[in-house]
């Protein structure tokens, strides 16, 4: 079984900056971490590899510094890594990103399963996974917390939705986006860390992927960020509990404290 995991480097939430002109996140020179949900995707893939014969390839689209994220994941036991990097990829929205990622999966060819995190913590769109699946014309399941291999052809996945739990039977090849319930990401091992340090990571650009510069990056993006702003902070909510009398008493004292006229 060949598993591909798509990961993304995101700015460490401690120091996020927005480009005043493009309204996109400034990634260069900002300390980056691997999107936490993508580490769960890596863990989901490694769990399958623990139990059966599987090869895991991790890929990311990003600037040259994204190689660091790939080495981190290699040190946790992933077999191979590919960096999708090209000046033409810059400024991509989810669609242009998905065009690039799906082209890379197609180039690999023999892929049975693609894992993504449920969403990235910077954009929070949760679109790339389903878009990649759509472009590859394969089925997908989102918000998955458990994956089992039924046989060569089928997976059993358990989805966690707001309404409840759904169990699906999915034919491969397929794409699955995962939530944190798949399991705590494992730490690196010394052997894998040593291998990761030495690993040659191929870099694929538009030439290698056979893509047109107009279809990727900012040029290939259908959406544009017009304005980025912080929504007004919601004021604190308090839930009052107890008997009706107690609740009224408490409400009264809150209103009094807030100096509401007439109380």
């Amino acid at each position, binding site marked *: 079984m060949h598993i591909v995991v798509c990961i993304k480097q995101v700015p460490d939430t401690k120091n996020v900056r927005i480009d005043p002109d493009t309204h996109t996140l400034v990634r260069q020179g900002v300390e980056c971490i691997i999107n936490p949900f993508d580490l769960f995707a890596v863990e989901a893939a490694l769990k399958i590899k623990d139990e059966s014969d599987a090869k895991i390839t991790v890929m990311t689209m990003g600037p040259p510094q994204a190689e660091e994220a790939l080495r981190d994941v290699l040190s946790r036991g992933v077999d191979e890594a590919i960096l999708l990097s090209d000046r033409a990829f810059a400024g991509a929205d989810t669609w242009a990103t998905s065009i690039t990622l799906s082209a890379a999966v197609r180039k690999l060819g023999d892929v049975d399963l693609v894992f993504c995190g449920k969403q990235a913590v910077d954009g929070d769109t949760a679109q790339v996974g389903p878009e990649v699946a759509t472009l590859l014309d394969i089925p997908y399941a989102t918000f998955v917390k458990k994956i089992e291999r039924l046989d060569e052809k089928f997976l059993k996945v358990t989805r966690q939705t707001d309404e409840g739990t759904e169990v699906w039977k999915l034919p491969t090849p397929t794409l699955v986006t995962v939530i944190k319930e798949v399991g705590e990401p*494992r*730490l*690196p091992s*010394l*052997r894998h*860390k*040593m291998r990761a*340090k030495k690993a040659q990571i191929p870099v694929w650009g538009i030439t290698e992927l056979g893509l047109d510069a107009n279809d990727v990056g900012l040029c290939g993006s259908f959406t544009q960020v017009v304005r980025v702003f912080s929504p007004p902070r919601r004021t604190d909510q308090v839930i009052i509990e107890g008997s009706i009398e107690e609740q009224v008493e408490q409400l009264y004292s809150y209103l009094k404290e807030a100096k509401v006229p007439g109380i």
Partner: protein
Amino acid sequence: MNYFLTEEQQMIRELAAQIAKEKVKPVRAQLDEQEEFPWDIMKILAQADLFGLYIPEEYGGMGGGIFENCLAIEQLAQACIGVATTFAASGLGAYPILLYGNDAQKEQYLPDIAAGKRLAAFGLTESGAGSDVSGIKTTAVRDGDHYILNGTKQWITNGGEAEIYSVLALTDRTKGPRGASFFIVEKGDPGFSFGKKEKKLGIRASATRELIFQDCRIPKDRLIGREGIGFINAMKTFDKSRPGIAALGVGLSQGALDLAAEYARQREQFGKPIIAFQAIQHKLANMATKTEASRALLYSVARHMDTEPPDASKLAAMVKVFSGDVAMEVATDAVQILGGYGYMQDYPVEKMMRDAKILQIYEGTNEIQRNIIGQELNKEYSRIKETFF
């Protein structure tokens, strides 16, 4: 400070530090409070390949030595020496096999120990034999293709949790120390059971139990090396393992120093942070100086030990005694700097102080270490013919 570590040694350090920070630190107070054996962390250390650092590659290890093992122990010890002791004690149990075991024994036991699949433990101490190893009473009597063990080992780290035990027993009572031999005993062997888990002042995450042998029958090929070399094996094992105890001390000292310095910068009294007072500065200065001295001695000795030197016993004792004393002192000073807060369980320094005490006691008390150093000096100077006067 640059200790000129190789790339691989730096990776070991990084990895162990990551585990200490992400997996040990958040649970150390709970493990201590509940005296809980850190199985989850042992599994993480196993998966990280750290159990095999000092074991040759042909037996599934990483092919490093004492130094590499000490680097990992030091980092784990910064977070909790209860956890780090559990890890290091598996090495202590493995060394008698590594040093004097035959190929079949090495092939059978070392790969599992290196992979962290099975923990090892070392059984020497008895109620009447601690510092005086020659006082052991446990016997092993040959009976055809078997040995039959009788006796009780006391205060055995990883006792009850480990699956592989290197146990010292007398095969010939008349020969004293020369009649002692090491055996491999496995959890589940007939006649082998465990006493209750001991309640301790510190390192409460580590398990300490009695090993009870009542007509414990084991195949004769569990004898390590040959009969009569048990005492030598024990001493050689300690030469290998004592730097590891020193690494626990260095890590604990660094952990306590870090907390004390951070606290001293934040805590304000008389209108300024207490680090502005010389009384605190001098304490921190001494703590930092001694911690670095302890690390420098450890790294030099551990590297030297990996060259199989003739003066191993003296140096192993020196590094153990120094770093243990430093750790006790630094942890005590850290509690003093944190004052009332330091005495409370809300801060980790009281645990460090309780934990540190064991470093001066186990794996040969610091008094015994000084005896060894003194005896070795006496031998060394007896060989020198020139006069210094």
